[in-house]
């Protein structure tokens, strides 16, 4: 009774105070460019999080029924456990944290497809002890990539799916630890789709892994591993509902179009291609002094290329078919139904000149644009005549180089277990553009089209003022060129006591992060603050956590955890428009996080159950985006300071045997994930950094964090047969899904001129809610043994009922026109219809 009372009191407190949570709107702000005034959204159908259908490696390995079910069954609906972004879960490789220092996010893409290697990650969710490092409040996952994790022998598998890729072939070979003290492991994984689930998308990836480990003696061993994944993907995009209605296709993709080749053949070409290859090299040394002391030291290096190839244009109409002025609604809103109907017919009839990129038109525009560039390449009198490109395909690179060092000591002293560690990471990202394809033109001129319109002084439009009017040919660097340097150093210590009735732990971490920008180009608009090193921004932080497990019996537990952290803002959030200048949000400060959870756990052989209440509060976050603002008639940098978040919720999971091989599971997640402050907005003109508006109040308090179901539930049955086979099904239901609120709509200025009785009042302020949705998933498998050969078959079918009405992700457009508040409606994507993954694996 006392326990319950305590719990209630605890919950009461959480209501009285306010708690917070992470920045969910961070879709991909680095893609947020002048070319593209809405943040690029990563579709569910995309591969960015390596959600390749073979079950998120991270979550699957968790034995917790809640995490396992949520990981597989809630994935497609973008459910996020506790509403956290993935930066709150630390991914270690051989004990070295691998988060991206620029964004804070984990970087699964670096080893995408190497499931044989990464499958057996050691995962613990949420606030917990951590034998490697302090870790995130969402838990951690350590991928051991040393040669001894590869099972001795061969493992060859083929998978077929209709998701982002179609085929996957994997081969893995290991020696295990041999008598001579050496172990070797090799794995190769190829994934391919000429065309993925969505029209015009494609997927090519090759993952590779090689490791060697030498055990010198019982105490010392050394491991060397290299792994990487080279990928190229043709991507899809998402739309306003009007496009889905017109095309009748919820998986429409305007990124591709037909291009007529010299041979006369017409081919599909994608205008949004992601390429990455950032291999990881590690050396790590294990020193087992004795059973009570272990010291692991690792060095990890990672470098490579990561870029997006996309269209850019100059003095030409927007080539994107879904540009708002190319949709019928634009003309209907202008009370011009005649033109609206012309467009409507073109879209409805699937005229690809309207519904897809019109490559031939782009080539024609370039071909007809004979132009004389005076004083080309910065040389007076150097007049060059040629076909000046109106449209090009350019590569936007963010190439990473990072080096990390981590050392961790684990030591038992009686009932006390001590862990202490050091970690340092240096990461340098090189951001620049290269010309990928001039689409038939002779050259592109390296000037900024928006600046050209806005400034009288011609130098202002120069992206590289040291060489004005530079003519760009394929392969040339242009546009922007700068480095972002990030350093992070931490020390941490943790103590655990295991007693008969109680286990305790407590951990602290001290960290220092600093970063700076180093510009290569002198930008014509920012000649004094674009070239060379910026000021160094340094942030010192500390974190502490503690927890207790009360063992009611060997089968029943109560656990409680709490943590207090301060976190540095990421360089991505601090720098505003780093492509053009050294400029930051005013007075960047650390974030603060409070979090806690309390759980009741049952662990019987036939029934396992966990019920948890959690809260998390995050304060003083920064939010910044660049987009076209209709109120100011300009591209602006819109910066919010003091964005607070809070999360609270209940997690419940039960898994029990009913009879024989039949078991049932149920998972319920009730969450409340909210904005918890009225942030202050600062608005800068992007082309001049002029502060146009400051101390603007954004009324965001209690808006829902969008882009995920706040709550979800799943019930399932599983049958395991005697002859190594199983089949299971889960019905999943997703609730309370919202689009993340666009801040500028929630200001006094946005509703100025409206009264509460006007429909615009609610249309502007109300958060867009998405209808609840469901899925039914089936999973099954069977294993065979033929002598020394093991064959296993595995398959899953997601969304068996082919529910294509469920909006699984989206965002409110930042663009907003007060004279027509619905002019820029939300963009969103629909969950994939029926999709499957089947795999056969042979082991010997």
């Amino acid at each position, binding site marked *: 009774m006392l326990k319950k009372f305590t*719990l209630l009191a605890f919950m009461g407190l959480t209501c009285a105070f306010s708690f917070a949570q992470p920045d969910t709107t961070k879709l991909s702000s680095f893609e947020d460019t002048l070319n593209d005034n809405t943040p690029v959204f990563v579709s569910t159908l995309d591969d960015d999080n390596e959600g390749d259908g073979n079950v998120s490696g991270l979550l699957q390995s968790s034995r917790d029924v809640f995490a396992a079910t949520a990981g597989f069954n809630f994935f497609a609906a973008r459910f996020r456990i506790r509403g956290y972004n993935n930066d709150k879960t630390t991914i270690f490789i051989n004990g070295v944290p691998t988060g991206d220092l620029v964004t804070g996010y984990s970087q699964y893409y670096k080893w995408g497809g190497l499931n044989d290697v990464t499958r057996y990650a050691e995962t613990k969710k949420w606030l917990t002890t951590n034998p490697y490092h302090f870790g995130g409040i969402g838990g951690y996952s350590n991928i051991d990539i040393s040669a001894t994790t590869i099972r001795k022998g061969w493992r060859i598998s083929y998978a077929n799916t209709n998701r982002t890729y179609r085929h996957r072939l994997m081969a893995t070979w290991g020696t295990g630890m041999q008598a001579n003290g050496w172990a070797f492991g090799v794995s190769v994984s190829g994934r391919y789709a000429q065309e993925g689930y969505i029209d015009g998308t494609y997927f090519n990836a090759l993952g590779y892994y090689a490791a060697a480990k030498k055990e010198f003696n019982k105490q010392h061993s050394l491991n060397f591993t290299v792994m990487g994944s080279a990928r190229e993907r043709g991507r899809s995009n998402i739309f306003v509902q009007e496009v889905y209605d017109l095309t009748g296709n919820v998986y429409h993709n305007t990124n591709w179009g037909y291009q007529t080749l010299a041979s006369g053949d017409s081919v599909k070409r994608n205008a949004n291609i992601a390429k990455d290859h950032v291999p990881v090299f590690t050396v790590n040394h294990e020193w087992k002094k004795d059973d009570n002391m272990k010291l692991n030291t690792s060095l990890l290096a990672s470098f490579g290329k990561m870029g997006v190839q996309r269209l850019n244009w100059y003095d030409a109409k927007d080539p994107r078919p879904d540009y708002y002025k190319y949709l019928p609604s634009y003309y209907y809103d202008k009370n011009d139904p005649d033109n609206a109907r012309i467009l409507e017919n073109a879209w409805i009839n699937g005229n690809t000149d309207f519904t897809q990129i019109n490559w031939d038109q782009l080539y024609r525009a370039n071909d007809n644009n004979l132009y004389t560039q005076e004083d080309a390449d910065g040389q007076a009198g150097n007049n060059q005549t040629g076909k000046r490109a109106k449209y090009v395909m350019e590569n936007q690179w963010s190439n990473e180089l990072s080096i990390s060092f981590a050392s961790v000591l684990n030591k038992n002293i009686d009932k006390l277990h001590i862990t202490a560690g050091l970690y340092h990471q240096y990461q340098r990202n090189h951001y620049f553009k290269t010309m990928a394809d001039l689409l038939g033109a002779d050259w592109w001129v390296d000037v900024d089209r928006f600046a050209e319109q806005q400034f009288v002084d011609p130098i202002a439009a120069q992206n590289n003022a040291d060489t004005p009017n530079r003519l760009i040919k394929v392969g040339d660097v242009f546009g922007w060129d700068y480095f972002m340097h990030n350093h992070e150093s931490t020390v941490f210590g943790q103590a655990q006591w295991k007693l008969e009735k109680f286990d305790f732990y407590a951990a602290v971490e001290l960290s220092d992060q600093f970063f700076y920008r180093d510009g290569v180009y002198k930008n014509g608009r920012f000649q004094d603050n674009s070239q060379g090193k910026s000021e160094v921004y340094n942030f010192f932080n500390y974190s502490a956590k503690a927890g207790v497990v009360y063992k009611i019996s060997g089968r029943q537990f109560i656990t409680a955890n709490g943590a207090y952290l301060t976190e540095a803002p990421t360089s991505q959030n601090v720098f505003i428009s780093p492509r053009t200048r050294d400029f930051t949000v005013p007075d960047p400060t650390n974030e603060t996080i409070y979090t806690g959870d309390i759980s009741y756990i049952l662990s019987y052989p036939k029934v396992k*159950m966990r*019920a948890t209440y959690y809260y998390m509060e995050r304060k003083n976050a920064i939010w910044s985006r660049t987009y076209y603002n209709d109120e100011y008639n300009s591209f602006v940098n819109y910066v919010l300071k003091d964005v607070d978040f809070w999360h609270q919720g*209940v997690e419940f999971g039960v898994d029990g045997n009913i009879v024989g091989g039949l078991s049932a599971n149920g998972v319920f997640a009730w969450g409340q994930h909210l904005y918890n402050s009225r942030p202050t907005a600062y608005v800068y003109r992007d082309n001049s950094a002029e502060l146009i508006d400051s101390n603007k109040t954004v009324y965001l308090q209690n*808006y829902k964090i969008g882009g995920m179901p706040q709550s979800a539930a799943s019930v399932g049955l599983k049958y395991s047969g005697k002859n190594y086979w199983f089949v299971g099904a889960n019905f999943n239901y997703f609730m309370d899904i919202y689009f993340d609120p666009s801040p500028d709509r*929630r200001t006094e200025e946005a509703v100025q001129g*409206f009264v509460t009785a006007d429909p615009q009042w609610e249309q502007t*302020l109300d958060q867009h809610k998405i209808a609840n949705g469901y899925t039914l998933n089936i999973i099954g498998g069977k294993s065979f043994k033929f002598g020394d050969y093991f064959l296993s078959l595995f398959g899953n079918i997601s969304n068996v009922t082919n529910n294509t009405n469920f909006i699984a992700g989206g965002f409110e457009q930042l663009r907003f026109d007060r004279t027509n508040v619905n002019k820029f409606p939300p963009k969103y994507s629909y969950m994939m219809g029926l999709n499957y993954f089947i795999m056969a694996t042979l082991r010997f």
Partner: protein
Amino acid sequence: MKKLLFIALGIAALTACKKEPDSPPENVIKSGSVITIDSLRNWQQAFSPGGVSITDTLHVYGIITMDESEGNIYKNLYLQDHTGAIQVRLTSGSDFAVGDSVRIALAGAYLSEYAGVIQLDSINPDEMIVKQSANNLILPEVMTIDSIGFEDEAKLVKLENVQVTFANLGSTWADAYNQASANVILEDCNGKTIIVRSSGFASWAGDEVPMGNGSVVCIVGRYNSDIQLTIRSINEVNLTGTRCAGQILAKDFEDDDLNSGGWINYVVVGTTLWETKYIGGNTFANITNWNGTVNSAAESWYLSPQLDLSNSTSASLSFDNDCNYSGDPLQLLVSTDYPGTGNPSTTGTWIDITSTASWDPNTSAWGFHPSGSIDLSAYTGGNLYIAFKYIGTNSNGRTWEIDNIVISG
């Protein structure tokens, strides 16, 4: 049991702290600050002919009865509610559409009068007009030319059984070329008339007025002592019926059909036919024996249907004509005994009345010329046919155009 209790308590505690989303400070309409259109009109009339500057936070609601999309008005809207209607003058063009229900914030607006029209002036459409909903259609009030008065100014009305006056037939609604406004007079069968004024920017400004009788939907306006109607959309001008008694035949070729109404195209010599032609918003009948290379001998008749003049004591004919190039004149003939079919050059007795008409004197340029009123009274008391006879030779031939044939009797 224990777990259920745990969960139940948990959910109870959590839902207890349901949180309402934030909102900027609310702007509410104060009671008494909404006024009707008739109050606005009365307010202005109290100060007439001066104006009233509105400084208080007041609002008027109404439905747009005319918008700018067709070009007949610009930077103007008409607003109507259950009490009345008013012209709204904007500071810039707008995209509001007929049927939009709107709220207009009146602070900063100006009430004034121009040539007797009450105007709600200085309205910034982006800042002061807030659309509430779309497609709220107000039906026009059916009125007669007689019953429309100054008190109906700005109101949406419908006139039935009206037609463009005989004098205005053949003209366009306005001067589209010079983008100048013009008047067209409508009449009813009792001879009551009313002005329709159209802007040279209206999308139908260059269209020829229709000849038939029917209905017209329009906004009532005023210019000092004159009532002026303003058409919202040419689609609401349905003048396709039979004209009032007294005019027995009219053909304007706007239906692009040479034979409608019983007219006959009869080739006696050669292969040259009368054809319809569309130029500059007007359709007319056209004939030429020049095929682009050579002239060829031609005799082609354009024959009217049988006209019953048995009850008439007087009759007249008028048409517009235009000719170009050298060759024979067009002949105008009448017959009282033509049987309605057969070769007219060998059938029936035809009387040449060419000389009674006025013909286009300029044979080297385009441009219609009115024939004037041709007296047909000598042929009343029975059936009558009229015919245009075209003659061409192998060496020359004119191009003739005919339009707006009206026969009264």
